[in-house]
């Protein structure tokens, strides 16, 4: 049963050439750059959205943290556009691959943590022990805080992978069930079709929300450390 379902998650290659590189680079075509003051509608829309996101996300940081604006904005644009493009029929979503999400999460998290250790060593180390803990609990709590620190990049990557993969799988399964049911009982097929529509709307939302969550968490780790 399972082989059919997971074929859409295989990395696309063509005659041994990595097609996946082209697919990862494709969203950049949809974000043209411009040096004019007044642009065409596509660029104006994107600039408006970018201003909204950067104001909302970067206002909590100090000057040092705001140097990360370019990185975080390109991150949210990349993840959002890749997830949304994955909802098109027959397309391949790079963010379903754990390797790619780990490649995004680990360097960003490590950058934030190492910046914190280099510039504010005492404050970063102080994060390992919440204020006001009773003395006997201290060793255990330090171990727990260390573990929770090191698990942060894993959760970032796995959260994105699992959400997007699960959504795509559900769409495949429910779509297949709808098709199979049309010949047996059209009423049930209609109900399943309505479920499919609701699921697709959910997937659009999830695509954008996951991008936001990823970026927000990275910015929070940054805030702790600048």
């Amino acid at each position, binding site marked *: *049963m*399972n082989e*059919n*379902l997971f*074929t*859409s998650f295989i990395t*696309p290659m*063509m005659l041994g050439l990595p*097609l996946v590189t082209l697919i990862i680079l*494709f969203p950049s*075509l*949809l974000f*043209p750059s411009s040096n004019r003051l007044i642009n*065409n*509608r*596509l660029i104006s829309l994107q600039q408006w959205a970018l201003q909204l996101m950067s104001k909302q996300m970067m206002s909590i940081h100090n000057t040092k943290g705001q140097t990360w604006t370019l990185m975080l904005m390109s991150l949210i644009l990349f993840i959002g556009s890749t997830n949304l*493009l994955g909802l*098109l*029929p*027959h*397309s*391949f979503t790079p963010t379903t691959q754990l390797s790619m999400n780990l490649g995004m999460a680990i360097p960003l998290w490590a950058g934030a943590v190492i910046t914190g250790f280099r510039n504010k060593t005492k404050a970063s180390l102080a994060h390992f022990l919440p204020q006001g803990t009773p003395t006997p609990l201290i060793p255990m709590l330090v171990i727990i805080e260390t573990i929770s620190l090191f698990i942060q990049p894993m959760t970032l990557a796995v959260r994105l992978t699992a959400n997007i993969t699960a959504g795509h799988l559900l769409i495949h399964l429910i779509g*297949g*069930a709808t098709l*199979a*049911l049309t*010949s*047996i*009982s059209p009423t049930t097929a209609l109900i399943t079709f309505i479920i499919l529509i609701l699921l697709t709307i959910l997937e659009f939302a999830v695509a954008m929300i996951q991008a936001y969550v990823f970026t927000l968490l990275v910015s929070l780790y940054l805030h702790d450390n600048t």
Partner: protein
Amino acid sequence: MASVVPLKEKKLLEVKLGELPSWILMRDFTPSGIAGAFQRGYYRYYNKYVNVKKGSIAGLSMVLAAYVFLNYCRSYKELSESLLDCFASGGVSPDRVGLVHRLI
């Protein structure tokens, strides 16, 4: 007024059919030539459909439709094989045979 334009500078639609092979061979196939061709194609599309005063959704949707089509071409082989399995097991995909049997 019968000035002969050299073959190299003619555009594709001006080339006669008999001259086509030699015209193709004269094109610039160096990496920078190919990159230039992609760049020119991109800007032709961009300036015609997107970079206009009242651009519409069509400029973006044509690109997405082409993307869907290319992905379909890429996965055609697997899709046709799974269709064959579907018809072999009586109109339902092979992993759903159990579901249909139980529902009937």
